């Protein structure tokens, strides 16, 4: 198999505090293939955004990568000096954040911001950069791009602003785009449009995408594979269709059952009792054990690792451990 575009291995992110060290990400491992869209879902505090920030080298201190490796196309990037990382950021990895108002500078026109980004990373003239900027805005679906490029961010509506942010993220033709909740601040009708633009334009340019969101619907529409995070640990990872229609981890199954859909007729939603544990109170063994309907003694003792399953799926649950199966059959 070819080397994946991005490879994250046993990533541990910790926050040292006065009352001990909090482990916000615990041995997270996944790959993103060339041109693939990997969705990452989880509830608030599961560590989704932290994973994105760790990859791009923007962890807020005192958060730090305690161990693990991040490889971008065969090159290790988690231990690069600040200056080298800065060149990768924006050039090889683009970012789309949730709130387009905070990721655009209100004091500069869209043209200035796009041209600056293009010229920082590519050796082109001002005129050429502007031409590219207009073409980009046009591509992301901003009407009358040549005229609107000289407007300030506040002149644009929320959806249009997010289009500008996507243009900005793609300005230097990155290999990987990390989109952190790109549509959460938008209305559904606008969300559908933004997802389409993001999907199309990344496919067109062969960029891979790490799509971070809490909305399983967005993942279903967009991603090839999905990784489910729970309390800083990967619960399950696999092709979108398999995970959504036939979840293996009890947490994923519970999560899917708790989402009301347009077609179901169930009177009650299945609910997962309780809430995700806080980082300072993660139980021993499997982090999901207090809420799991299928919990057994081993879950309280040992923390499960990702277990490889058929069709490239992985799940970290003792239910799928070969030894357990033998015991239960015997």
């Amino acid at each position, binding site marked *: 198999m070819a080397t994946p575009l991005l490879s994250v291995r046993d990533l541990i992110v910790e926050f040292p505090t006065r009352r001990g060290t909090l482990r916000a990400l615990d041995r997270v491992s996944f790959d993103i293939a060339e041109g693939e869209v990997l969705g990452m879902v989880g*509830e*608030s505090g599961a560590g989704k955004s932290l994973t994105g920030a760790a990859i791009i080298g923007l962890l807020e201190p005192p958060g730090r990568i305690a161990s693990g490796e991040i490889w971008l196309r065969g090159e290790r990037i988690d231990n690069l000096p600040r200056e080298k990382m800065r060149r990768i950021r924006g050039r090889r990895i683009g970012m789309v954040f949730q709130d387009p108002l905070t990721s655009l500078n209100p004091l500069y026109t869209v043209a200035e911001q796009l041209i600056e980004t293009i010229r920082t990373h590519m050796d082109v003239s001002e005129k050429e950069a502007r031409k590219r900027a207009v073409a980009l805005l046009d591509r992301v679906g901003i009407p009358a791009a040549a005229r609107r490029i000289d407007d300030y961010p506040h002149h644009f*509506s929320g*959806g*249009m602003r997010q289009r500008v942010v996507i243009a900005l993220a793609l300005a230097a033709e990155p290999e990987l785009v990390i989109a952190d909740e790109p549509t959460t601040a938008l*209305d*559904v*009708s*606008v*969300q*559908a*449009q933004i*997802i*389409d633009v993001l999907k199309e334009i990344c496919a067109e340019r062969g960029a891979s995408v790490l799509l971070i969101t*809490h*909305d*399983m*619907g*967005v993942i*279903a*529409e967009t991603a090839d594979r999905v990784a489910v995070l729970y309390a800083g640990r990967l619960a399950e990872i696999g092709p*979108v*269709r398999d995970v*959504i*229609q036939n979840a293996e981890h009890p947490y994923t199954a*519970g*999560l899917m*059952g*708790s*989402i*009301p*859909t*347009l*077609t*179901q007729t169930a*009177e*009650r*939603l*299945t*609910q*997962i*009792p309780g*809430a*995700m544990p806080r980082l300072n109170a993660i139980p021993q063994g499997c982090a999901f054990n207090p809420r799991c309907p299928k919990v057994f003694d081993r879950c309280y003792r040992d923390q499960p690792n990702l277990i490889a399953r058929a069709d490239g799926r992985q799940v970290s649950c003792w239910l799928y451990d070969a030894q357990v199966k033998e015991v239960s059959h015997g």
Partner: protein
Amino acid sequence: MADVLLSVEGLTRRFDVSKPWLNRVIEREERQFLTASESVSFEIKRGETFALVGESGSGKSTIAKMIVGLLEPSAGVIKFDGQEMDFASGAAMRTLRRRFQMIFQDPFASLNPRWRVDDIIAEPIRTFGLLRGAEISNEVGRLLDLVGLSAADGTKFPHEFSGGQRQRIAIARALSSKPEFIVCDEPTSALDVSVQAQILNLMRDLQDEFGLTYLLISHDLSVVRHMANRIGVLYLGRLVEVAESKRLFTDPQHPYTRMLLDAVPDLALSGRRRMPVTGEIPNPINPPSGCTFHPRCPKVMDICKTQNPRDFPTATGTAACHLLSQEAAVSGTD
């Protein structure tokens, strides 16, 4: 049994968004008004859940605030249990207010951080003088129990609870004055899905137990589908379609409803064919002429640009669209 608990007729609210007087004089500008809600009419029957859906800026929250009396309508009538709401009379409003309550979107903002939970829940009981002394703390304990918390939680402060638990506290407070009608303004949009399921289930259980009537405001069509008996779809302050829940999702009459349904991500991966969504909600200060949806409508006709459609009857409700008048005319000539 199907008597009307709340009826709203021609409810209109305009906000003055003009610049200050001096600016208007110097810049020669007219006064500007934003019409957040334009002659909205609907009825809610006792014991049912009526939902209002729409995107941001469609006037959902404005209508909710007018119904609970937090905002005075510019025009129109709100009748609660046959009695017209009289915003001028404080005493009349107070007696009505006990009978309806509100649950807000953000449980971090709607609970006073300096009050203990039992005081928060007891406040409506004390304000309306429903109980006294030890009865109050018994009642608070019972309410906490009812929403899935324990009576011992009453001595804690709101910050000690998670988002879902706070929303439970907000529900307990809403129930404390024994209301018949609860307005829920985006009750779960600040919560994670697994917690959302808990709150939605709780709301249903309470409805069954106490025969509550809900007005549910939400932007999330799947939540609305799950909870509501009847649904009203708002666009730019106008009610474009009202229908029974099942019917709205299987057979939407208004093009906007159809577009909204098509925009919802397809979790079932059914691969259903969908129309791509186009355009955004226009500026409500200066809405398009005629039918306000016409610039985005795939089936726009000439009449839509000049004439605002009236409500036409549909199988289970109404829809404001000129297409329906044509259909009516065609079937009339047959």
